[in-house]
Structure formats: C-alpha cells, structure tokens
C-alpha cells in the first residue's frame, strides 16, 4: 500500500466521524497552543529583563560598598562597624586601570524640588558628565552636566523629561532656577523621554554634579560606581583591576563588591529560561492528556470498525498495514491539531503583545518545535496499543462483528 493511499484512506475514515475528529483536533490544538502561549510569555519576560539590563549601559562593571559575600565573621563585624564608604577619590583611582574607559560615580537621595508654588519630592542623582555615555542617556534640550574636576560642586541640574513638564509645562526651562532641598540650581538641560529602566524612572530624575549632591545630602560616600570597560573582552580585567585598586586603597580590606553586568544578566537569563521551560513542561501535560484522549478515541474507533478491519484483512491487508492505517490516523489528528494549535498560539501571543506592549512576546523556536514534536509523538505513541489491537483482531471474528 502506498503512503499517499494510506494517508488518503486514514483521512477518509477521520472524515467519516467528523465530530469526534474535530474534538480530538481541538484537544490537541489547545495543548499545543498552551505551550506556545506560555513559552511566549516566559520568553517575553526574559527578553524584557535582558533589554532592561542592556539599556543600563554596555560592558558595565558595578562597584558597591560593602561585602555581600558571607565568608565568616570579619573583625569589623564584631566591632559593629559599617563597611567603609566609597569616596570620590576611590572612583577617580579606578581610571588608572587600562581596562577602564570611563566611570560614573553615583550618589542617590531624595529631596523636594520646587519652582515657585510647585513642589514635589524627587529622586536626586549625583554624578558626572560621563554618566550620559555610561548609562546611554540622551539629552533632549540644552546640555548635560559639565565635565571637569569631580570634586567641584556646581549649582546646575539636568531635569528628567517628566519633571520638566510638571514644573515648566510648555515654558522654556533652560536657564531657569529651581530649588532643590535648601539650595538653588540652574536648569542646564532636559533629558529626552526614556521611560523606565531597571525600576528607575529616568523621566522623574533630577541629576546634579556629584559634589553638589554630597553637599545637599551631607555625605561623602557613593551609592555605587558604574565602570565602563573598554570592550567586552576587557570586562573581566576591569573587574579584577577594580577589586585590586579598592583593596589597596582600603588598606588591604576587601570591603567592596564588584559585579559585572554580564554576570547579573546571565543569572537572570538562567532563572527566566528555567522558568520558561518549567511553564512549558506544565503546559505539555495538557499534550499528554490529549494523547490519552487520542488513545481513547482510537480504541473506540477500533471497536466501532471491527467489521471494516475484518474486511481489510479478508481483502489481503497484512497486520502491519492495519497498524499503519491507525498510525496514519493518529498522525493526521495530531498533525492537524499541531497546526491549529500553532495558529491559535500565535494568535494568542499577538493578543498578549497588544495587551502588554512592553513585553516582547514571541514564542521561542525550541518551544514550537517541542510542542509539535510532543503532539505528534504522544499521538503516535498513544495509538500504538489501539493499532496493535486492530492488527491482532481475528479476521473471522472481526467479520462477524465480534
């Protein structure tokens, strides 16, 4: 029997009981669609996080005060010391490393921003001119913080896009004075609209020179130092150098944490990929259920078509041909079900993409392949038993309908 004839005969018997066939295809397609949609969501979440990290800057090494590793109890802990803070001199010293292109020290605090009667609480970021490049920000109007000695304070500020709109509306903001805490600052620039990145809304920030921020908040320590390595390959060197420099400057004490953006990214990537796969696994349970359904339906089909099977045997169909016919039916069912499920799943992904525009929802290729593979696999696997049962029927008894 030719393959095309086998398929034609199988599709004929599927058309013979359209309701059953449609229900089976529906069950199979729901399973496939579930896998596609859920993995699309998981993959969307992963891409979202990765995009957020990338928008933070490229080739970044981040220096934080304090040691987050737990390596026993240090002497400082027993004396109740808090970790030594990172100073502006420490930050400047990092530039000695060959692997480092530029740095941006960061101080963060909150203060009330006011202009005339308008007043609101804002997050104030103290940094330097290089922050613009390091953090991939862009200036919409005016200019960014002036370059120069980082110890030098200046009464200038750059407003986030939303801050500008709230304080000035459509008025000219550049050159105007605003009050931040107990000091006056002149607006020299406005950031272009950027949205959210890593939980920090740059649109609602006010950026001032780091020395001014220190005066404003009466501190001398840095929140962190963003270090941009010269290239992707020099990230590890930059990290090592930063550790060495801080170690020397802090009298041989390892009291800072240096992390690379890549390491954080890789961790998130691993976690979210694992999550996506777990979700795909859960969704594929529905595929297994669909497989059991196929087995049930095929068993019923064998029972209902006993006479037909007997006839095929009488007409000279060997057992393997009978098996092939039932396999073909199962394969057609799960094949059509897979295609329908893919269509359904992709449509669902598009809808989710419309509802959550910031999620880059797209089903990963491996999930699509796995879903279809599992659908076909379970369909055929679960039809082994019914097909064998059909092939083993005694022709005499089958012809009599027994």
């Amino acid at each position, binding site marked *: *029997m*030719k393959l095309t*004839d086998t398929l034609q*005969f199988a599709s*004929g*018997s599927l*058309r*013979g009981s359209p309701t059953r066939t449609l229900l089976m295809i529906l069950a199979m397609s729901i399973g496939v669609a579930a896998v596609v949609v859920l993995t699309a969501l998981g993959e969307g979440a992963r891409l979202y996080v990765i995009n957020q990290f990338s928008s933070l800057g490229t080739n970044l090494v981040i220096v934080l005060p304090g040691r987050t590793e737990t390596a026993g109890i240090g002497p400082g802990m027993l004396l109740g010391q808090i970790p030594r803070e990172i100073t502006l001199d420490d930050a400047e010293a990092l530039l000695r490393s060959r692997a480092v292109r530029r740095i941006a020290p960061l101080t963060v605090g909150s203060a009330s921003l006011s202009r005339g009667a308008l007043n609101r609480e804002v997050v104030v970021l103290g940094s330097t001119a290089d922050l613009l490049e390091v953090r991939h920000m862009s200036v919409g109007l005016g200019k960014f913080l002036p370059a120069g000695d980082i110890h030098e304070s200046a009464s200038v500020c750059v407003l986030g896009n939303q801050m500008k709109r709230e304080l000035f509306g459509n008025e000219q903001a550049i050159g105007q004075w605003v009050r931040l805490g107990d000091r006056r600052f002149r607006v020299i620039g406005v950031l272009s609209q950027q949205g959210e990145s890593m939980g920090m809304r740059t649109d609602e920030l006010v950026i001032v020179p780091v020395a001014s921020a220190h005066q404003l908040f009466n501190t001398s320590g840095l929140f962190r130092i963003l270090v941009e390595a010269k290239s992707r390959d020099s990230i590890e060197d930059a990290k090592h150098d930063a550790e060495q420099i801080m170690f020397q400057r802090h009298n041989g004490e390892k009291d800072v944490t240096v992390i690379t953006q890549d390491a954080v990214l890789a961790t998130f990537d691993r976690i979210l990929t694992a999550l996506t796969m777990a979700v795909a696994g859960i969704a594929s349970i529905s595929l297994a259920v669909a497989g059991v359904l196929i087995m049930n339906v095929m068993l019923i089909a064998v029972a209902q078509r006993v*006479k*037909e099977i*007997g*006839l*095929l*045997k*009488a*007409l*000279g*169909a*060997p*057992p*393997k*041909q009978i098996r092939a016919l039932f396999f073909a039916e199962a394969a057609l069912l799960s094949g059509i079900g897979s295609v329908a499920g893919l269509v359904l799943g992709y449509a669902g992904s598009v809808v989710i993409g419309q509802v959550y525009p910031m999620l880059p929802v797209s089903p990963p290729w491996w999930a699509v392949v796995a879903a279809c593979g599992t659908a076909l696999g379970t369909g055929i696997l679960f039809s082994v038993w019914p097909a064998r049962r059909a092939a083993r029927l005694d*022709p*005499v008894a089958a*012809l009599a309908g027994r």
Partner: protein
Amino acid sequence: MIELQNVCRTFIVGDQQVAALRDINLRLDAAEYISIMGPSGSGKSTLLNLIGLLDRPSSGTYLLDEGNVTQLSDEQQANARRDKIGFVFQSFHLVPRLTAAQNVELPMILAGIPPEERKARVQVLMQNYGLSERADHRPDQLSGGQRQRVAIARATVMNPTVLLADEPTGNLDRNTGWEVLKLLEGLMDKGITLVVVTHDAEIGARARRQIHMLDGRILSDEQTN
C-alpha cells in the same frame, strides 16, 4: 488448485474442545463450481474460512497452487489472500463511507497498484456488472442486488484463483438472488474456481459438484452433470 489433506479444526469453548472440522480431505480443481451444503454448525463456514486463509487448521496440510500455505506467516497469508482469493459475504461488507467505485478499488489500493491502472480496471468492471451509473453512490444508496454486485466486482478485481461466497443470496429476494448467482457462475469462464456455501438446496443444486457436510465431516461429495 486447492488441496486439503487430513485437515482438522478444533475450537476451545470454555474448557471443552469442540471439533468444527474432522479429518477433511478435499481437492478442488481450477474452474470448478462447488456448492457446500449442510445444517448450521456442520462446519461449512469454518471450511470456507480455512480455504480463504482467514483461519488456520489445527492439524493437516493445505496446498494452494501446489504451495503449502499452512506454514506461511501472517503477512504471506495476507498476500496470498489478496492475490488469489476473493470473498463474497452474505451481508456484503462494503465500507459505508466509500462509494461503490472506491469499494471496488480497495483491494488494489492495498496491493499498491498505481491509481491510473486502478481507475481503468474499476471502470471496466463497473461497466461489465452494469454499475456504471451507480459508481459514485454510497452503499446505503444502493439496492441489495447492486450492493452484492459491487461486492462481487471487488472480489474479482484482483483476478483471484478462487472465489468464496458465503450465503451470497442470503440477504436478497429470490429474483435478485438468481441474478447475483448467474453473475457468479459467469466467472467460471475466466477460470475462477467458485465455492458457494448455502443451506438452500435449490441454489446448491445448480453446482456441478455438491458437497454435503454434517458435524464437521464431509457426508457426500457428488459430481453431477
């Protein structure tokens, strides 16, 4: 050419052995017309199933065209059935979702014959049996006589050596029954051996060779002219 030597067939019903066929010796030649008669339970259907390779003897030897077919595998038996044996059943056994033409085509599909040749052979047969206008009808749109003619067309489409008919007129009225019987008898001209199982003495009497069975044994085997 069919030869059965000391063939027995026993069934196990519950814990009892029931002998359906006891020590059958039989030889059927090409283009013979044989009727097998006997009351129900006499073993005539079992004999037909054995000859048709649907069943295997418990002991004894079955030679089909000089070849011993008792030792063949399931697949080889299926192939022998496909190429050498045609069946006509009392209840027609047409596939309800296929048209008359598709039902006739079925054995050739199983044999892997290319579609063009299938179409041509189906067309010739349908014409010979006066079914051309009914080719695209499903079995439930056909009369009993037409259904049996489709079944005969299907049984002969592979040009078998032997055609086995089990009560071929059992579900038909008298007139259509005669027509179907004449159609079957006409096949002998092509050298096909025709075996008709019946318990209708009038139909059985039409065969040149009449075998009477009782309790799994051949009671009489008469040749008439």
